[in-house]
């Protein structure tokens, strides 16, 4: 994931940014990095100093007319600051809250100026593509999703850690060849990608190629590259509840659907997982998920219901098994049973 690049090869990102600055006519770049990544910050600072010392950053780069400075801005622990408009506001020193687009950052971004904003992974790819050519890059992966992707393999799997794989690799290869499969005595159930904004890939889709398009067909996303493996012991309602709890915490509170809707969705999940949910609660859960997805202001709210919708799609029975009978409902034969036992 992005932290591994910032820690392992920060110069790659600086080079990519300088090239992007040259191409777009910018003279100032910012790296927005989480305060929770102190090693990344330390190495980025060192790398910027090194690059400035040898004239790869700063004024008159390679004795040309081109000047480019890079400064670091450190986040204050808000997930929503990954959303581009919130990130820009945070760099400006304001509250990290998203705003409606358009205008897009390319039109009106940092301090109102046209702004190019990209992910660490994107900038890290630029220099190798220029050095080796676009044909080399396009030859890796699939026609629509070129290149490689770094995943953080975690969960119920033998080998966890960071892996770099070509796009389009079948999920089966990641789980069993690289990950070594699920622990002894359990079977693979699902893989969750894209974190709290993503969804699940169920066990019967093990041959799904892992690329942007294929993930979209099962309702998941690539996201930042989190890949959490669940085995037969995992409870999918708890998985959905865990991610919703995260979104409740991380909602910035600006728009009503995300601020209040995530709380109610979490409450319904809590009720259902506690065995107190009814079929009406399940119907309401689905309606609220759809509503929050369609009406929220930014990507956080729009994707917050994804883990619920995804687990409902593939593991609906885990929800229905937890439902209690509606109040006043007497199952057939229960009255007889009472008279015989009582």
């Amino acid at each position, binding site marked *: 994931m992005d932290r591994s690049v910032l820690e392992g090869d920060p110069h790659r990102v600086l080079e990519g940014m300088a090239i992007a600055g040259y191409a777009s006519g910018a003279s100032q770049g910012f790296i927005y990095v989480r305060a929770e990544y102190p090693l990344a910050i330390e190495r980025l600072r060192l790398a910027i100093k090194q690059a400035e010392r040898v004239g790869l950053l700063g004024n008159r780069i390679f004795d040309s007319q081109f000047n480019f400075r890079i400064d670091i801005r450190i986040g204050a622990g*808000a997930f929503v600051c990954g959303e581009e408009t919130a990130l820009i506001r945070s760099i400006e020193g304001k*509250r990290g809250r998203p705003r*409606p687009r*358009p205008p897009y950052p390319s039109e009106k971004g940092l301090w109102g100026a046209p702004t190019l904003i990209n992910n660490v992974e994107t900038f890290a790819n630029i220099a190798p593509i220029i050095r080796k050519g676009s044909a080399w890059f396009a030859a890796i992966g699939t026609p629509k999703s070129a290149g490689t992707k770094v995943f953080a393999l975690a969960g119920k799997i033998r080998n966890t850690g960071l892996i770099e794989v070509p796009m389009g690799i079948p999920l089966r290869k990641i789980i069993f060849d690289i990950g070594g499969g699920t622990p002894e005595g359990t079977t693979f159930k699902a893989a969750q990608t894209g974190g709290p904004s993503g969804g699940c890939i169920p066990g019967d889709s093990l041959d799904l190629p892992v690329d942007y398009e294929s993930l979209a067909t099962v309702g998941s996303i690539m996201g930042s590259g989190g890949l959490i493996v669940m085995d037969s012991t995992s409870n999918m309602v708890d998985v959905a509840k865990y991610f919703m709890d995260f979104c409740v915490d*991380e909602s910035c*509170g600006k*728009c009503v659907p995300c*601020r209040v809707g995530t709380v*109610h969705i979490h409450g319904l999940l809590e009720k259902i997982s506690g065995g107190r949910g009814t079929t009406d609660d399940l119907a309401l859960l689905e309606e609220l998920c759809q509503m929050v997805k369609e009406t929220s202001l930014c990507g956080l709210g729009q994707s917050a219901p994804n883990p619920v919708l995804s687990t409902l799609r593939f593991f609906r029975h885990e929800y229905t098994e937890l439902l209690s009978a509606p109040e006043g409902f007497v199952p057939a034969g229960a009255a007889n049973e009472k008279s015989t036992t009582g």
Partner: protein
Amino acid sequence: MAILTLTINGEHVSGKDDESLLAIASQHGIRIPTLCHLDGLSDVGACRLCLVEIEGSPKLFPACTTRPQEGMVVSTDTERLRRYRRIIIEFLASEGNHQCAVCVVNNHCELQNLAYETGLTHVSVPYLYPKKDLDATHKDFIIDRNRCVLCTRCVRVCHEVEGAHTWDIAGRGISCEIISDLNQPWGASGSCTSCGKCVLVCPTGALIEKGEAVAEMEKKTDFLRYIVTARQKREWVNVDSDEE
């Protein structure tokens, strides 16, 4: 600036390309429910009540921040939009402690009117009963955070029109709250000019005048249009005089 023609709810309308869909609709007598929007303040697209459908896109667009395009086909009152608007009002009702019967703005409340308009008969989600503060330290006004819908009109009018920026937001998510200065009691605020604009633009009974009894206070927001228009047209600047 160009004049564009578009269709709203099957009606052909025209509007300027730098106006919002909300403004164009309102000029043609088409009502779109709003809460965070107020003529004279910047738009933030936060309440999501003014979401509309645009033909050719599965997404919903906030009318307050969406600009028109030639030939655009807009629907403002579909079954889906009506349902979502009702849920938004349900969310707001469940989020605070809104007791209309004992509220100073009862019968003059925008949240109450929106509940009527969206046909809200009951709230299907549980009430959250938050424990929020009431601050009556200001000599003239009260802020009751239990009745706040976080529309941020007060924040914007104080920053954009009065220029004091007394109000801002603290916390995040469901624990967001409107605070004065750096979370000082309102009465101790050094930046507040006691102009009362925030009280007048507040859509609910969260910001009220002292001394008003239940259902007594009616808020007026017209003043904002006059101030903003006068500033834009520089009506208060005597360009001919040479006072110095």
